[in-house]
């Protein structure tokens, strides 16, 4: 748990200084690769692999914030994202003349607002419970939402859902273009990533982690622990909603299948696979998941995709609670230890 906060912030430092200090050379390399990538790859890699990784990563990031820092495993993060997506369709309009066709400047913020409000409500319901009960109540919310949109025709258009959803041309830019969509997704993902990173070191995030580790003491210290947890749900909901809006634009449609049990569990797998204790984890998990989803067919014949992903998931949770990041850390430490055998002794 201590590894979450590698460096203790000094009170005297400004926000910027606190964020800049831990920058290493490989951060710059990654940033450069991310910036150059769409110009050297095909549209398929830019959108289907990279942008999808950013989007799924962003939704999983919201789970990471709740689970990693708040100790609350919520299975309804994809439901929040899905609700935002549905609202984009309802307010922004979809093919077949469905929806309100309000201008995007109204429709998109409203969609995000509604999803965030819903997340806050789910949070208020679920913070009364602990551990497995939190998982169950959020799973129940997710499944109830799935069955509701499957049957509701008036708002959610039932089984058919909405199609023809595309990013509106804002600022005269066609955001459908692979490069633009890539940078849009990258911006949102980076925003979410740095927000969570900042939160982890801000007083709110530190208090949240303390509530996770010892709620009783925090309550005794005068913290309103329920309020902290609900606020975490609201923030996570906001991040998930951002991802959700991008998700419908990527898929160009949304239907009950997009918010069913399978995708719900996938978000959990993504967050755990990459590493639930650091905000970069969900993005690593998303990359692995997206690559497997697209190329498992060629590699293993495709029929047993679920066995492969399930086995990977099982091995990770059995042997590396901190996901792929944890494996990396273990490998690095072992390497260090073998290089300088005397250093730690």
């Amino acid at each position, binding site marked *: 748990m201590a590894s979450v906060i590698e460096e203790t912030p000094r009170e005297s430092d400004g926000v910027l200084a606190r964020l800049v200090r831990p920058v290493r050379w490989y951060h710059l390399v990654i940033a450069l690769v991310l910036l150059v990538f769409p110009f050297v790859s095909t549209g398929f890699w830019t959108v*289907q692999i990279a942008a999808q990784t950013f989007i799924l990563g962003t939704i999983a990031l919201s789970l990471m914030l709740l689970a990693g820092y708040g100790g609350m495993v919520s299975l309804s993060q994809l439901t929040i994202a899905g609700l935002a997506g549905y609202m984009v369709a309802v307010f922004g309009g979809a093919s077949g003349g469905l929806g309100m066709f309000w201008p995007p400047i109204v429709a998109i913020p409203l969609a995000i607002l509604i999803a965030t409000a819903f997340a806050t409500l789910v949070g208020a319901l679920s913070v009364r419970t602990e551990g497995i009960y939190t998982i169950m109540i959020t799973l129940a919310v997710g499944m109830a939402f799935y069955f509701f949109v499957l049957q509701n025709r008036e708002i959610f258009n039932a089984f058919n859902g909405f199609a023809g959803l595309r990013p509106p041309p804002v600022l005269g830019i066609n955001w459908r273009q692979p490069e633009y969509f890539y940078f849009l997704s990258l911006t949102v993902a980076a925003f979410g990533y740095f927000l969570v990173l900042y939160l982890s070191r801000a007083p709110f995030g530190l208090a949240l982690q303390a509530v996770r580790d010892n709620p009783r003491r925090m309550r005794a210290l005068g913290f309103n622990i329920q309020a902290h947890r609900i606020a975490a749900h609201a923030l996570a909901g906001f991040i998930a909603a951002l991802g959700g809006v991008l998700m419908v634009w990527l898929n160009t*449609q949304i239907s009950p299948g997009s918010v069913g049990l399978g995708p719900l569990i996938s978000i959990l797998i993504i967050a755990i696979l990459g590493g639930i204790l650091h905000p970069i984890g969900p993005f690593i998990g998303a990359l692995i998941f997206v690559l497997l989803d697209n190329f498992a067919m060629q590699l293993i014949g495709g*029929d047993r995709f679920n066995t492969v992903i399930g086995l990977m998931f099982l091995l990770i949770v059995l042997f590396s609670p901190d996901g792929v990041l944890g494996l990396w850390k273990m490998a690095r430490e072992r390497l260090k230890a073998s290089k300088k055998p005397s250093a730690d002794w």
Partner: protein
Amino acid sequence: MKRLFTKVATAGALALAVGVGPAQADEPIRIGVLATLEGVFAGPGQDGVRGFEMAIDEFGGQVAGRDIRVYRASSDASPDSALRAARRLVESDNVDILIGPLSGAEGIAVKNYAHEQPQVTFLNGSSAAQQTTLENPAENFYRFSTEGVQWQAGLGTYVIEEKGYERVAILAEDYAFPYAQIKGFMTEFCAAGGTVAEKMFVPLETRDYSSVIARMPRDIDAIYVVMGGSDILNFLEQYQQMGGQAPLIGGSISVDQTILSAEGPTRDYLIGTPTSGPIADDWEDERWRAFQDRYREMFPDGLPSPGLFAHAYYVNTLAALTALEEVGGDLSDGHAAFREALNNLELETPTGVISVDHNRQAVADIFITEVASDGEGGLYNRVVGIREGVNQTLGFPEEEFLANGFAERDNPPVEDCQ
């Protein structure tokens, strides 16, 4: 700095590896096939691919002297995953022709995607949603297989004239495919003077029908049931146990081989159940028999007889290859000649001649069948009629047909038929 260079170089190499220049005449023709090969619908998906392979095999893996290179992609039957798979085939594998997908909602998603990729020609797999070719159809999406509404052509008239069922209750699962089937059934049934006592929908994945059965109206001649194979087995078992006695009328996927070969006393109840669809297992026709024999020969582990899905994938793939052969494999000028050939194709298939209308939707024959006993304890679907040349608007002028709207939960309304 060296690491940086390596990473950029890798990204570049990756791009080179996945990007391929425009196809040339001596290059192989790239065909993608998209079916559901994972999850619950893997069975139908595999059968679809069998149909695809039969067509490729018929041409010896070559068309107009050019080799065929096949790319496969799988979905999990959700539109999101179908779109992802289609994108991979089109944008990463650079296929010229894409055949698929399997199910209705996927078909609509792929058709919408076809609008964005005018350089590729799409042919349907086995998806059978009405809207795919009737609402905002794509110029480059062809469907040589028929859809859910067409599949019930002739059934409404048949049950009134031959079976004397004039008043029915409708029981169906609550999603798009049954809506389409009900539309097809009610259009003729109501026009021929039949009445519908009640339409009852059960949410998908319902297994316990007992309370729905308890609600069933009593004053009916038959129940028209549109459910998947295993659900109808559950329903029938429970219906009989609750003392139900009304005969059944089946949707196209309700009374298939799996049900007929299921064991137990439930089964005999099905004798005399009429249904209709794009194929009939026991049609005594040489072309169909030959197709069946070839299927069994190629796939000893396959189904006892090619199913709906194998047939649909086969017909669509056959159309693509036949048209390609006709134009000598010419895909230049945005597939212009190839598409012209598809538009004018009179395709000879094991189920008769198929052509497409101005929306690129098949006009084909529909088979009306009735469950019969073979005298040795087995059941089969006996062909009792063929409705020839069924088009997408069931013979109505398109405007009149469209004015009634697409099939929906409450469309057509029961009130219009009482």
